[in-house]
Every structure is written in structure tokens, then in C-alpha cells.
């Protein structure tokens, strides 16, 4: 075996190659996270299909889905029905809703350069709730199946734009994030009290009152393929619009003026992203009710893992938000023997302490004027 007598002149690592190596490391880290999230997503889905009051094995789950896909479904087989008509749509709706909340939280935090921005904080979720409740009260929801999500979107977008306009006016055209959040909190409080007001008026009509109360509790109980098909188109459209702005969101980290300088039309970007997030949140709220903390918590965890760049942050926030809600729903429906918890209770119980822990560890820096 030949031995090297003279050390061959090793090429000095150039600064360019150092930067290239760092880029490759960042990309590798994002890919590792993506792989982990995909694996966790598959595992969460499998768990959601396996766990429940009826004992169904993994082989039976696979068989049921396989028979369904090949069109040889057996309506008499109750196990097939439980898997394909109950557990699978419920898990998919949960994934879609959780993903929607995750990606919109990440987008809003980037858009307003504020780690506390979230659909709930900016009045978007509560506006969607109010719109949905009004749709139920005026019997629109019973007439057309798209009425509920459409009204939720109108409520979400209307409130988001209202918050936005008031904040911009008080800043004389400039948008201060502190003002924006305070206005959002005020408008959210108004939305919630209006929703309560509408609910108290409608309690006389037992059926409507029960329907609203049930819906306001939120959750994924009894969600079907219809819910999935109703939510999917607006969430897809809004999600693609949001993903089209990943680089603009990165540029906003430079500050508004510098973002303008590199070619970002900040006002137009804000307007379009607020509408897109309203579309996504409106659809998510319409099919699962108000669910908190997913949009706040998930992007922070992803940011700690893969950094702040939105090209990785947004898709991973969708995946992780979906996984989080599927698992939270698993807990919600199996924690108590007799009763199902609303999934929003679980996300709050897990989300609030975790978020506080993140804050205390100074992983989240509250900055901005």
C-alpha cells in the first residue's frame, strides 16, 4: 500500500466555498426536518386511524383503505366504515386545519415582523367565527353548503382589513406593529362579544342555539369527507398565494424601506397576504371552529430548528401544524373514557405552557416599534 511521503498541497478553503458549504448545511438541515416531519406525519396519521373505541388492527386499516381505493369497498363491513368514513376524514380534516393555522401563523409573523402575530391575535379567527355564527343564525348555512365557509372568509377578511386600516390610520400611513396588535386585540374582543350577543339572542330557538354552541366549541368530531372537500380548495388557493411570497417575507426582515428597495411592494404584499391568510383561516374555522395556539406555537418551534427563512419555514409550519392537530385530536378523543374533549382545549393546554416556556427561554424576541 503506497504511503504518501509528501503531504499534497491541500487547497485552502476559499471564502466562497465556506459560504457554499454553509448554504448546503442549511439546505440539508431543512431537508432533514422535512423528512422527520413527513415520517411524523405518517406516524400521526397511522395512530389516528388505529386508536379509537373500536379495536381495529393495522392490517384491517390497510385493507379497508386498499379496498376503498380499488373500489371493492364492502358497505356491510363495519370496520371499513369506521376507518374510511369516520377516522380517515377526521384525521385528514385535522391535518388540513392544523396545517392551515401553522402556515398562516408563520406568514403573519413574517408579514408584521412580530412573533406574537397570529390569526387569533389579528382578529382574523374571531372575525371568521362571527361570520360563521351569523351564517347559522340567518339560516344561510342550511341553504347552501358553501355559505358557512364563505361567511367565515368574509368575516375574517373584513376584520383583518378593518384592523389593518385602523392601525395604518393611527400611524398616519405607517404601520406600527405594536399598534396593529393592540387594534387586533380590541377588534377580536368586539367580535367575541358580538358572537356571544348573537348566541344569547338565538338561545330562544333551541335548534339554532345548540348548533351555534356546538360549532363554537370547535373540534373535529363527526368531520366527514364533505368537510374536507369544502375546505380544500380555498386552503389550496390561499396556501399557494402565501408560498408565492416567501422571498418577499424574507426581504421584510431587512425593514420596510430596504424591502421596498429590493423590489417588494410592501403595501400590495400586505394586502394580498392578509386576504390569502383570511381565505385559509376562514376555511379552517368554518370546518373546525376556532382553535387556538397552533399558529402561534408551531412556527416558533420550526424557526428554532431551521431558521427564519420562509421557503423552509412556511411548508414545514404547515406539516408540523397538521401533525400537531392530528395528535391533539387523538388526545381529545381518547383522554376521557366517556366524553370527547373539544380539540381546542387540548391545543391550549399544550400550547400555552409551551409558548410561555419559549418566551422565558428568550427564544422569542419581541421587537419592533
Amino acid at each position, binding site marked *: 500500500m503506497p504511503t504518501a511521503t509528501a503531504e499534497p498541497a491541500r487547497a485552502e478553503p476559499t471564502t466562497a466555498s465556506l459560504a457554499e458549504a454553509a448554504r448546503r448545511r442549511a439546505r440539508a438541515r431543512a431537508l432533514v426536518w422535512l423528512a422527520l416531519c413527513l415520517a411524523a406525519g405518517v406516524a400521526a396519521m397511522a395512530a389516528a386511524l388505529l386508536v379509537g373505541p373500536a379495536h381495529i388492527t393495522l392490517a384491517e386499516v390497510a385493507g379497508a383503505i386498499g379496498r376503498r381505493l380499488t373500489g371493492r369497498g364492502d358497505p356491510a363491513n363495519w370496520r371499513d366504515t369506521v376507518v374510511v368514513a369516520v377516522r380517515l376524514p377526521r384525521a385528514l380534516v385535522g391535518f388540513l386545519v392544523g396545517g392551515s393555522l401553522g402556515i398562516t401563523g408563520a406568514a403573519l409573523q413574517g408579514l408584521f415582523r412580530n412573533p406574537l402575530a397570529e390569526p387569533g391575535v389579528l382578529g382574523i379567527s374571531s372575525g371568521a367565527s362571527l361570520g360563521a355564527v351569523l351564517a347559522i343564525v340567518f339560516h344561510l348555512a342550511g341553504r347552501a353548503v358553501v355559505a358557512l365557509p364563505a361567511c367565515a372568509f368574509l368575516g375574517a377578511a373584513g376584520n383583518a382589513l378593518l384592523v389593518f386600516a385602523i392601525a395604518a390610520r393611527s400611524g398616519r400611513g405607517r404601520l406600527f406593529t405594536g399598534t396593529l396588535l393592540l387594534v387586533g386585540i380590541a377588534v377580536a374582543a368586539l367580535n367575541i362579544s358580538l358572537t356571544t350577543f348573537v348566541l344569547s339572542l338565538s338561545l330562544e330557538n333551541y335548534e339554532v342555539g345548540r348548533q351555534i354552541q356546538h360549532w363554537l366549541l370547535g373540534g373535529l368530531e363527526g368531520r366527514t369527507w364533505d368537510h374536507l372537500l369544502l375546505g380544500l380548495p380555498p386552503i389550496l388557493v390561499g396556501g399557494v398565494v402565501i408560498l408565492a411570497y416567501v422571498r418577499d417575507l424574507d426581504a421584510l426582515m431587512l425593514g420596510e424601506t430596504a424591502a*421596498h428597495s429590493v423590489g417588494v411592494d410592501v403595501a400590495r404584499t400586505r394586502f394580498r397576504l392578509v386576504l390569502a391568510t383570511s381565505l385559509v383561516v376562514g376555511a379552517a374555522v368554518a370546518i373546525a371552529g376556532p382553535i387556538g395556539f397552533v399558529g402561534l406555537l408551531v412556527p416558533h418551534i420550526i424557526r428554532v430548528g431551521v431558521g427564519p427563512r420562509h421557503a423552509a419555514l412556511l411548508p414545514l409550519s404547515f406539516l408540523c401544524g397538521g401533525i400537531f392537530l392530528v395528535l391533539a385530536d387523538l388526545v381529545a378523543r381518547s383522554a376521557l373514557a366517556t366524553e370527547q374533549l373539544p380539540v381546542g382545549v387540548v391545543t391550549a393546554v399544550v400550547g400555552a405552557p409551551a409558548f410561555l416556556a419559549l418566551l422565558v427561554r428568550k427564544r422569542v424576541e419581541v421587537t419592533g416599534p
Partner: protein
Amino acid sequence: MTMTTTTTTAAGAPLVLVERLGFGYGRRPVFADVGFAIRPGELVALCGPNGAGKSTLLRLLLGLHRPAAGAVTLGGAPLSSLTRREIARRAALLPQDAPADLPLTVREAVALGRLPHLGRFQAESAADAEAVARALEATDTAAFAARPVTDLSGGERHRVHLARALAQEAPLLLLDEPIAGLDLSHQLQALDLLRATVDAGRGAVVALHDLSLAARSCDRMLILADGALRLDALPAEVLTTEHLQRYFAVAADVRNDDRGRPLVVPR
């Protein structure tokens, strides 16, 4: 009162042409009837007392305010006819308020300068990577390209933001007080870097407070004061005791250094 001197070094079509430009915030006028042109190879200082509207003028050149009167022509086209991305390919602005807590690495921050050249779902090409590498090289920031911007000193951070503007490959650079907050050595470094950049074929307008440093590095000086562009001339013509008294309310002598460059010496 406006004095105009055509410089001999400048050639070619103007990168920016400003004609009878006026602007006010609400009813409060900031300035009126401002006119000048910047050509490739020109480094022009924009000076004036606080509140004269230097930052506002730079923002107007980028189309961030709507002018009350007059017109800006950027690279031969009226500013109002250009999209934000088209503007970004013609002019790059270094604002005063660059965030110190930018959580990106140096290379990521500089690569944002490529945004106006990229489509929405388009990945960075080899040409973009080369432009970024050139900008890092020119600003001497390549050595810490992989470090987060938050780790850098003020002087290094300034170079990173300049590198972002260079990566943008816009022929016109607009800089709003780029050397404020730097020590003298870093101020000189920053201005020399800017001088070298301009000598390589770009044009630049730089808002500066230090008149002697402006005279040392710049080809021309614009004096914006009392709501109008008062002077547009060579540094030696701009810096006189009379002008300093009139536009800056400062009693000062102007001496020449060993190389014949004017120095402002307050009395």
C-alpha cells in the same frame, strides 16, 4: 439662488434625472423646484441641515412618496411608469434604519438583493450566485459570509448592507447617512469603498453630515436647505464661509488641506 455647474468627468445618459420636484407632508411643504442629474461614475453628496428633507428626497427617487410636483426619470423611464421590481433593477437604497437584529446569515442577507431579478417560484441561478459572490468580494465580507448578521460589528454590518445593494446590480445607489455611527477609520473605509464602487461604473447619491468628508470623497455636492436645492457644484465651490453661514447657520472657516481639498473648520 440655484447654482449649476456641469462637471467634466460625467458622461452618458443620466441614471436619474430630477426636474422641478416638489414634495410636502400634508400641507407642510418640505421642498420645491428641486432639479439635478446623476450620471455613471459620479459620487454626489447630498448635504443640508437636519429636517431639510434629504431622506425624503432619496425616498422620492425610489418612488416611495408621490411627488407634489415635478418628475423623476430613472434610467430613461418616468418613475411613475415603473413597477417596484423595475425600479429595484435601476436603483438600490441603503436606508438609515437597517435592523441590527437581522436573524439571517450574511450570505442570505446579501442574496436578498437578487429578489428583483427572480420570479416568484424561481430558484437562485448560477448568475445570481455569482452576483452575490462578487458583492461579498467587493465589500470584503466574504470571510464571514456564513455568520449571522447579528454577530457582526457596526462597520461590518454596514458593509453587508452595501453588499446587498451591490448584489442588486442596480446602476444607481442611494445611501442615507451610511457612515453615521461609525468611527473615523470605518467612515473612511466606507467612503473609499463607495468611491471604488462608483469608479467601477455606477452612480451614487449619498446623504452625509460631515462636509469635509463629503468634499474628500465626492465629485459634487448638493445642498438642500430652506425648502429648495440651493447648490449643485464642486466641493470647492460649495464649501465657503458664506455658504456655511447661510445654509447651515454655522460660523466656520474653510481651509485647504495639503492636497488642495477643502476642510471645514468651525470657529
